[in-house]
């Protein structure tokens, strides 16, 4: 089952990357078939070799509720990404370079692998924080460009609280 999902996804990406197959070519149909056969072959190989990378619980992502939360999460995420960028640009261009870097520890309640991956990636792309490592007990080590609190709970509040709410509803 996972192989089929993987095959379809990689084939769609192949189509997107190779479209249009042969613009203005003389024998366009043969070119089409060549490209598609190559795509089927490549997707097949990818699906056989790498299907284990896809999370086991992948079917739960197709529920309408999760997709709605995901669409709602996108603008929120984009807002924080913009804020993060202006913050880093300010620190990079400021003559005195106002940075107080350090690695702090935060706790997450998320359990599934995909949820923790999404949280770690969200943290990395947003205000002054970069995930360094994740432990099995649910702690994340985060490099923070402007440390406001070294306490676990306070740092959790400041860094990950705003994402956990959404990610729990999308990925858990």
């Amino acid at each position, binding site marked *: 089952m996972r192989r089929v999902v993987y095959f379809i996804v990689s084939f769609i990406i192949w189509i997107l*990357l190779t479209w249009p197959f042969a613009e203005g070519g003389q024998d366009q149909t043969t070119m089409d078939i060549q490209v598609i056969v190559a795509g089927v072959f490549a997707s097949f190989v990818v699906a056989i070799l790498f299907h284990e990378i896809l999370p086991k619980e992948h079917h739960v992502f197709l529920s309408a509720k999760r997709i709605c939360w995901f669409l709602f999460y996108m603008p929120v995420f984009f807002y924080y990404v913009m804020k993060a960028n202006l913050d880093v640009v300010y620190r*990079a261009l400021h003559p005195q370079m106002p940075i107080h*870097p*350090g690695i702090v520890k935060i706790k997450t309640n998320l359990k599934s692998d995909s949820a923790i991956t999404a949280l770690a990636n969200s943290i*990395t792309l947003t205000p002054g924080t970069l995930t*360094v*490592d994740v432990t099995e007990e649910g702690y994340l080590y985060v490099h923070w460009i402007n440390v406001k609190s070294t306490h676990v709970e306070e740092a959790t509040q400041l860094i990950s609280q705003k994402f956990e709410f959404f990610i729990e509803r999308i990925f858990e």
Partner: protein
Amino acid sequence: MIDIIGYILITIGIIFDICGCIGLVRFPDVYNRLQAATKCVTLGTVLLLAGVALGSHSGAIASKAIVCAVFILITSPTAAHAIAKGAHSAGVQLWSKSVVDKYQEEVDRHNEWLKDKE
């Protein structure tokens, strides 16, 4: 009109890319440099690709640009984790004025635990 929006997006993207590169040069240690490299360069490149997708007037180019943007959004933070963790376990020190390093404490505790076990 769409052309103009595309050009504006490309301009903003390039400005973010330049600021990211300035940060990459100015910041003091690996971890701060990664911050500049992941945030500014990711957003700058994604905006640039979005501008290309809008300004190209061609479904073929737009679809490629969007696929590339999604890949960059997924892979760039992942690569940053890998580099940061690799740098830390290889013993790259934080900047001397860094405030705190909880990760080092954890690594030390783990090493002590391993020593005790022996």
